Protein backbone atom coordinates (compact mmCIF):
# COMPACT_ATOMS: atom_id res chain seq x y z
CA UNK A 1 0.00 0.00 0.00
CA UNK A 2 1.29 3.48 -0.85
CA UNK A 3 2.13 5.95 1.91
CA UNK A 4 -0.61 8.29 0.73
CA UNK A 5 -3.17 5.49 0.92
CA UNK A 6 -2.03 4.61 4.44
CA UNK A 7 -2.32 8.26 5.45
CA UNK A 8 -5.77 8.44 3.82
CA UNK A 9 -7.02 5.48 5.87
CA UNK A 10 -5.46 6.83 9.04
CA UNK A 11 -7.23 10.18 8.61
CA UNK A 12 -10.49 8.41 7.75
CA UNK A 13 -10.63 7.14 11.33
CA UNK A 14 -11.06 10.71 12.62
CA UNK A 15 -14.24 12.73 12.88
CA UNK A 16 -14.43 15.32 10.10
CA UNK A 17 -14.61 18.10 12.71
CA UNK A 18 -11.31 16.95 14.18
CA UNK A 19 -9.41 17.40 10.91
CA UNK A 20 -7.72 20.55 9.67
CA UNK A 21 -8.61 22.17 6.36
CA UNK A 22 -5.37 20.83 4.84
CA UNK A 23 -6.17 17.28 5.92
CA UNK A 24 -9.69 17.50 4.52
CA UNK A 25 -8.30 18.79 1.23
CA UNK A 26 -5.83 15.88 1.15
CA UNK A 27 -8.69 13.39 1.72
CA UNK A 28 -10.72 14.92 -1.09
CA UNK A 29 -7.84 15.09 -3.55
CA UNK A 30 -6.57 11.61 -2.78
CA UNK A 31 -10.03 10.07 -3.15
CA UNK A 32 -10.32 11.74 -6.55
CA UNK A 33 -7.01 10.21 -7.68
CA UNK A 34 -7.06 6.75 -6.05
CA UNK A 35 -9.78 4.32 -7.01
CA UNK A 36 -8.90 1.85 -4.26
CA UNK A 37 -9.24 4.47 -1.52
CA UNK A 38 -12.46 5.72 -3.08
CA UNK A 39 -13.81 2.20 -2.78
CA UNK A 40 -12.50 2.05 0.80
CA UNK A 41 -14.39 5.24 1.66
CA UNK A 42 -17.59 3.91 0.12
CA UNK A 43 -17.18 0.64 2.03
CA UNK A 44 -16.75 2.53 5.28
CA UNK A 45 -19.93 4.50 4.69
CA UNK A 46 -21.76 1.27 3.81
CA UNK A 47 -20.38 -0.36 6.92
CA UNK A 48 -21.78 2.44 9.07
CA UNK A 49 -25.16 2.10 7.34
CA UNK A 50 -25.16 -1.69 7.73
CA UNK A 51 -24.38 -1.43 11.43
CA UNK A 52 -27.05 1.24 11.89
CA UNK A 53 -29.62 -0.95 10.13
CA UNK A 54 -28.82 -3.80 12.50
CA UNK A 55 -29.41 -1.79 15.69
CA UNK A 56 -31.62 -3.64 18.16
CA UNK A 57 -34.16 -1.31 19.75
CA UNK A 58 -34.97 -3.42 22.77
CA UNK A 59 -36.22 -1.61 25.88
CA UNK A 60 -36.71 -4.59 28.11
CA UNK A 61 -39.81 -6.17 29.54
CA UNK A 62 -42.41 -4.32 31.61
CA UNK A 63 -41.46 -6.30 34.68
CA UNK A 64 -37.77 -5.34 34.50
CA UNK A 65 -37.90 -2.76 37.31
CA UNK A 66 -39.88 -5.13 39.54
CA UNK A 67 -37.39 -7.91 38.90
CA UNK A 68 -34.42 -5.73 39.80
CA UNK A 69 -36.19 -4.53 42.94
CA UNK A 70 -37.00 -8.10 43.92
CA UNK A 71 -33.38 -9.15 43.43
CA UNK A 72 -32.20 -6.20 45.50
CA UNK A 73 -34.61 -7.08 48.31
CA UNK A 74 -33.69 -10.78 48.22
CA UNK A 75 -29.97 -10.15 48.30
CA UNK A 76 -30.48 -7.55 51.07
CA UNK A 77 -28.34 -5.01 49.22
CA UNK A 78 -30.15 -2.02 50.72
CA UNK A 79 -29.86 -3.43 54.25
CA UNK A 80 -26.12 -3.67 53.78
CA UNK A 81 -26.04 -0.11 52.47
CA UNK A 82 -28.01 0.97 55.51
CA UNK A 83 -25.78 -0.91 57.90
CA UNK A 84 -22.38 0.46 57.03
CA UNK A 85 -23.23 4.11 57.66
CA UNK A 86 -24.43 3.70 61.28
CA UNK A 87 -21.54 1.27 61.84
CA UNK A 88 -19.06 3.82 60.55
CA UNK A 89 -20.71 6.51 62.68
CA UNK A 90 -20.44 4.31 65.77
CA UNK A 91 -16.80 3.51 65.03
CA UNK A 92 -15.97 7.19 64.57
CA UNK A 93 -17.74 8.14 67.81
CA UNK A 94 -15.83 5.44 69.73
CA UNK A 95 -12.53 6.55 68.21
CA UNK A 96 -13.26 10.17 69.14
CA UNK A 97 -14.11 9.15 72.74
CA UNK A 98 -10.90 7.10 73.09
CA UNK A 99 -8.79 9.95 71.72
CA UNK A 100 -10.42 12.43 74.11
CA UNK A 101 -9.74 10.11 77.07
CA UNK A 102 -6.11 9.69 76.03
CA UNK A 103 -5.71 13.43 75.70
CA UNK A 104 -7.20 14.08 79.14
CA UNK A 105 -4.99 11.41 80.75
CA UNK A 106 -1.76 12.58 79.15
CA UNK A 107 -2.40 16.26 79.91
CA UNK A 108 -2.46 15.66 83.76
CA UNK A 109 0.50 17.42 85.52
CA UNK A 110 3.34 14.84 85.91
CA UNK A 111 5.26 16.62 88.72
CA UNK A 112 3.29 16.97 91.97
CA UNK A 113 3.24 20.39 93.60
CA UNK A 114 5.26 20.62 96.83
CA UNK A 115 4.21 22.52 99.91
CA UNK A 116 6.80 24.02 102.33
CA UNK A 117 5.98 21.60 105.20
CA UNK A 118 5.99 18.45 103.01
CA UNK A 119 8.42 15.77 104.21
CA UNK A 120 10.56 13.89 101.65
CA UNK A 121 9.60 10.26 101.01
CA UNK A 122 11.88 7.41 102.13
CA UNK A 123 13.21 6.95 98.57
CA UNK A 124 13.91 10.67 98.28
CA UNK A 125 15.75 10.61 101.64
CA UNK A 126 18.09 7.85 100.42
CA UNK A 127 18.84 9.86 97.28
CA UNK A 128 19.55 13.00 99.29
CA UNK A 129 21.94 11.06 101.61
CA UNK A 130 23.79 9.58 98.65
CA UNK A 131 24.14 13.01 97.10
CA UNK A 132 25.50 14.52 100.27
CA UNK A 133 28.00 11.64 100.82
CA UNK A 134 29.40 11.91 97.32
CA UNK A 135 32.74 13.68 96.94
CA UNK A 136 32.65 17.00 95.24
CA UNK A 137 33.95 16.92 91.64
CA UNK A 138 37.54 18.16 91.31
CA UNK A 139 37.83 21.68 90.02
CA UNK A 140 39.28 21.97 86.52
CA UNK A 141 42.76 23.37 86.30
CA UNK A 142 44.02 25.76 83.69
CA UNK A 143 46.19 23.05 82.03
CA UNK A 144 43.21 20.63 81.74
CA UNK A 145 41.34 23.15 79.65
CA UNK A 146 44.17 23.14 77.15
Amino acid at each position, binding site marked *: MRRDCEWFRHLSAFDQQELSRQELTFLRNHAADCEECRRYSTDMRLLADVLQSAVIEHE*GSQSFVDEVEEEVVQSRVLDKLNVWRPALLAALTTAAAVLTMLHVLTSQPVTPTLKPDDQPTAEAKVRIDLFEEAEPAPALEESDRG
Partner: protein
Amino acid sequence: MLEWRDLQGEKVKEFQASVPFESVEAVDPKAEEAQLVLRTRQGDQNALRELVNRHRVRLIRTAANVLRDPMEAEDVAQEAFLKAFRELHRLRDDRAFASFVYRICVRLCVDRLRVKRAEPAELEPRQEAQGGSIETRMLVEKVLNQLPPDLRLTLVLREMEQMSYEEVAETMGVPVGTVRSRLHTARERFRALWNIATREEESY
Protein backbone atom coordinates in the same frame (compact mmCIF):
# COMPACT_ATOMS: atom_id res chain seq x y z
CA MET B 1 -28.55 56.38 49.26
CA LEU B 2 -29.33 53.20 47.43
CA GLU B 3 -27.35 52.63 44.28
CA TRP B 4 -28.43 50.74 41.19
CA ARG B 5 -26.21 47.78 42.20
CA ASP B 6 -27.88 47.54 45.61
CA LEU B 7 -31.29 47.61 43.97
CA GLN B 8 -30.20 44.86 41.65
CA GLY B 9 -28.97 42.85 44.64
CA GLU B 10 -32.31 43.37 46.37
CA LYS B 11 -34.13 42.17 43.26
CA VAL B 12 -31.99 39.05 43.12
CA LYS B 13 -32.76 38.34 46.76
CA GLU B 14 -36.48 38.87 46.16
CA PHE B 15 -36.40 36.54 43.19
CA GLN B 16 -34.49 33.88 45.13
CA ALA B 17 -37.02 34.11 47.95
CA SER B 18 -39.93 33.77 45.54
CA VAL B 19 -38.60 30.57 43.92
CA PRO B 20 -39.11 27.47 46.08
CA PHE B 21 -35.90 25.57 46.87
CA GLU B 22 -37.23 22.29 45.44
CA SER B 23 -37.89 23.81 42.02
CA VAL B 24 -34.34 25.21 41.82
CA GLU B 25 -33.00 21.75 42.55
CA ALA B 26 -35.29 20.05 40.04
CA VAL B 27 -33.77 22.09 37.20
CA ASP B 28 -30.48 20.18 37.50
CA PRO B 29 -31.08 16.52 36.59
CA LYS B 30 -27.71 15.50 38.03
CA ALA B 31 -28.57 17.02 41.39
CA GLU B 32 -31.87 15.18 41.25
CA GLU B 33 -29.99 12.00 40.48
CA ALA B 34 -27.65 12.59 43.42
CA GLN B 35 -30.73 12.94 45.63
CA LEU B 36 -32.05 9.61 44.37
CA VAL B 37 -28.71 7.93 45.05
CA LEU B 38 -28.64 9.40 48.55
CA ARG B 39 -32.18 8.16 49.23
CA THR B 40 -31.24 4.74 47.87
CA ARG B 41 -28.27 4.63 50.24
CA GLN B 42 -30.72 5.31 53.06
CA GLY B 43 -32.82 2.33 51.97
CA ASP B 44 -35.56 4.08 50.00
CA GLN B 45 -36.93 1.52 47.51
CA ASN B 46 -38.87 4.13 45.54
CA ALA B 47 -35.66 5.99 44.80
CA LEU B 48 -34.06 2.74 43.71
CA ARG B 49 -36.96 2.03 41.34
CA GLU B 50 -36.67 5.52 39.92
CA LEU B 51 -32.95 5.05 39.26
CA VAL B 52 -33.55 1.72 37.52
CA ASN B 53 -36.37 3.20 35.47
CA ARG B 54 -34.23 6.12 34.35
CA HIS B 55 -31.33 4.07 33.06
CA ARG B 56 -32.79 0.71 32.05
CA VAL B 57 -33.54 1.59 28.40
CA ARG B 58 -30.02 2.77 27.65
CA LEU B 59 -28.39 -0.16 29.43
CA ILE B 60 -30.58 -2.83 27.83
CA ARG B 61 -30.24 -1.30 24.37
CA THR B 62 -26.44 -1.13 24.53
CA ALA B 63 -26.16 -4.64 25.97
CA ALA B 64 -28.53 -5.95 23.26
CA ASN B 65 -26.40 -4.42 20.52
CA VAL B 66 -23.13 -5.62 21.99
CA LEU B 67 -24.34 -9.14 22.75
CA ARG B 68 -26.85 -9.36 19.86
CA ASP B 69 -29.31 -11.04 22.19
CA PRO B 70 -32.16 -9.03 23.79
CA MET B 71 -32.91 -11.60 26.48
CA GLU B 72 -29.29 -11.90 27.54
CA ALA B 73 -29.11 -8.10 27.47
CA GLU B 74 -31.84 -7.90 30.12
CA ASP B 75 -29.93 -10.37 32.29
CA VAL B 76 -26.75 -8.34 31.99
CA ALA B 77 -28.54 -5.04 32.68
CA GLN B 78 -30.14 -6.55 35.78
CA GLU B 79 -26.77 -7.83 36.94
CA ALA B 80 -25.28 -4.39 36.28
CA PHE B 81 -27.89 -2.65 38.46
CA LEU B 82 -27.39 -5.15 41.28
CA LYS B 83 -23.63 -4.74 41.13
CA ALA B 84 -23.97 -0.94 41.05
CA PHE B 85 -26.19 -0.90 44.16
CA ARG B 86 -23.92 -3.37 45.92
CA GLU B 87 -20.89 -1.23 45.15
CA LEU B 88 -22.59 2.10 45.76
CA HIS B 89 -20.02 2.91 48.46
CA ARG B 90 -17.40 3.09 45.68
CA LEU B 91 -19.28 5.86 43.90
CA ARG B 92 -17.47 9.04 44.91
CA ASP B 93 -19.78 11.48 43.15
CA ASP B 94 -23.47 10.65 43.46
CA ARG B 95 -24.15 12.78 40.38
CA ALA B 96 -22.19 10.29 38.26
CA PHE B 97 -24.44 7.27 38.87
CA ALA B 98 -25.41 7.04 35.17
CA SER B 99 -21.86 6.56 33.90
CA PHE B 100 -21.04 4.34 36.90
CA VAL B 101 -23.78 1.82 36.12
CA TYR B 102 -23.19 2.10 32.35
CA ARG B 103 -19.50 1.24 32.74
CA ILE B 104 -20.40 -1.76 34.89
CA CYS B 105 -22.87 -2.94 32.23
CA VAL B 106 -20.35 -2.60 29.39
CA ARG B 107 -17.71 -4.48 31.40
CA LEU B 108 -20.17 -7.30 32.06
CA CYS B 109 -20.92 -7.44 28.32
CA VAL B 110 -17.21 -7.77 27.52
CA ASP B 111 -16.88 -10.56 30.10
CA ARG B 112 -19.77 -12.42 28.45
CA LEU B 113 -18.25 -11.95 25.00
CA ARG B 114 -14.95 -13.38 26.22
CA VAL B 115 -16.73 -16.44 27.61
CA LYS B 116 -18.72 -16.81 24.39
CA ARG B 117 -15.60 -16.67 22.24
CA ALA B 118 -14.17 -19.53 24.25
CA GLU B 119 -17.32 -21.58 23.65
CA PRO B 120 -18.42 -23.00 20.26
CA ALA B 121 -20.60 -20.56 18.27
CA GLU B 122 -24.35 -20.82 18.53
CA LEU B 123 -25.79 -21.91 15.19
CA GLU B 124 -29.46 -21.24 15.72
CA PRO B 125 -30.38 -17.83 14.27
CA ARG B 126 -32.75 -15.57 16.17
CA GLN B 127 -35.66 -14.45 14.06
CA GLU B 128 -36.36 -10.98 15.40
CA ALA B 129 -36.71 -8.52 12.58
CA GLN B 130 -36.13 -4.85 13.47
CA GLY B 131 -34.82 -2.17 11.18
CA GLY B 132 -32.87 -3.91 8.39
CA SER B 133 -33.64 -7.26 6.81
CA ILE B 134 -33.19 -10.47 8.76
CA GLU B 135 -30.37 -11.50 6.40
CA THR B 136 -28.44 -8.29 7.01
CA ARG B 137 -28.90 -8.55 10.73
CA MET B 138 -27.74 -12.15 10.73
CA LEU B 139 -24.70 -11.27 8.64
CA VAL B 140 -23.82 -8.38 10.95
CA GLU B 141 -24.15 -10.73 13.90
CA LYS B 142 -21.96 -13.31 12.21
CA VAL B 143 -19.24 -10.77 11.43
CA LEU B 144 -19.39 -9.14 14.88
CA ASN B 145 -19.02 -12.57 16.46
CA GLN B 146 -15.67 -12.94 14.71
CA LEU B 147 -14.23 -9.72 16.14
CA PRO B 148 -12.32 -9.70 19.44
CA PRO B 149 -14.45 -8.29 22.31
CA ASP B 150 -12.63 -4.95 22.59
CA LEU B 151 -12.89 -4.22 18.86
CA ARG B 152 -16.50 -5.32 18.75
CA LEU B 153 -17.43 -3.14 21.71
CA THR B 154 -15.66 -0.09 20.24
CA LEU B 155 -17.46 -0.54 16.93
CA VAL B 156 -20.88 -1.00 18.53
CA LEU B 157 -20.53 1.97 20.90
CA ARG B 158 -19.40 4.25 18.09
CA GLU B 159 -21.45 3.07 15.09
CA MET B 160 -24.61 1.75 16.72
CA GLU B 161 -24.85 3.76 19.93
CA GLN B 162 -23.51 6.85 18.13
CA MET B 163 -21.24 7.79 21.02
CA SER B 164 -18.45 10.35 20.58
CA TYR B 165 -14.81 9.19 20.77
CA GLU B 166 -14.55 10.79 24.22
CA GLU B 167 -17.64 8.97 25.49
CA VAL B 168 -16.35 5.64 24.18
CA ALA B 169 -12.99 6.30 25.82
CA GLU B 170 -14.62 7.13 29.17
CA THR B 171 -16.89 4.08 29.04
CA MET B 172 -14.07 1.71 28.16
CA GLY B 173 -11.53 3.37 30.44
CA VAL B 174 -8.95 3.91 27.69
CA PRO B 175 -7.39 7.02 26.06
CA VAL B 176 -9.10 8.58 23.03
CA GLY B 177 -6.11 7.63 20.86
CA THR B 178 -6.67 3.97 21.71
CA VAL B 179 -10.34 4.28 20.76
CA ARG B 180 -9.36 5.78 17.41
CA SER B 181 -6.84 3.05 16.60
CA ARG B 182 -9.20 0.28 17.79
CA LEU B 183 -11.97 1.74 15.68
CA HIS B 184 -9.70 1.87 12.66
CA THR B 185 -8.72 -1.79 13.12
CA ALA B 186 -12.30 -2.84 13.86
CA ARG B 187 -13.60 -1.16 10.70
CA GLU B 188 -10.87 -2.74 8.57
CA ARG B 189 -11.55 -6.19 9.97
CA PHE B 190 -15.31 -5.79 9.74
CA ARG B 191 -14.96 -4.70 6.12
CA ALA B 192 -12.79 -7.71 5.23
CA LEU B 193 -15.05 -10.18 7.07
CA TRP B 194 -18.16 -8.55 5.64
CA ASN B 195 -16.86 -8.95 2.08
CA ILE B 196 -16.12 -12.63 2.71
CA ALA B 197 -19.51 -13.20 4.35
CA THR B 198 -21.48 -11.51 1.56
CA ARG B 199 -19.55 -13.44 -1.12
CA GLU B 200 -20.38 -16.68 0.72
CA GLU B 201 -24.05 -15.69 0.90
CA GLU B 202 -24.14 -14.95 -2.83
CA SER B 203 -22.54 -18.28 -3.69
CA TYR B 204 -25.36 -20.24 -1.93
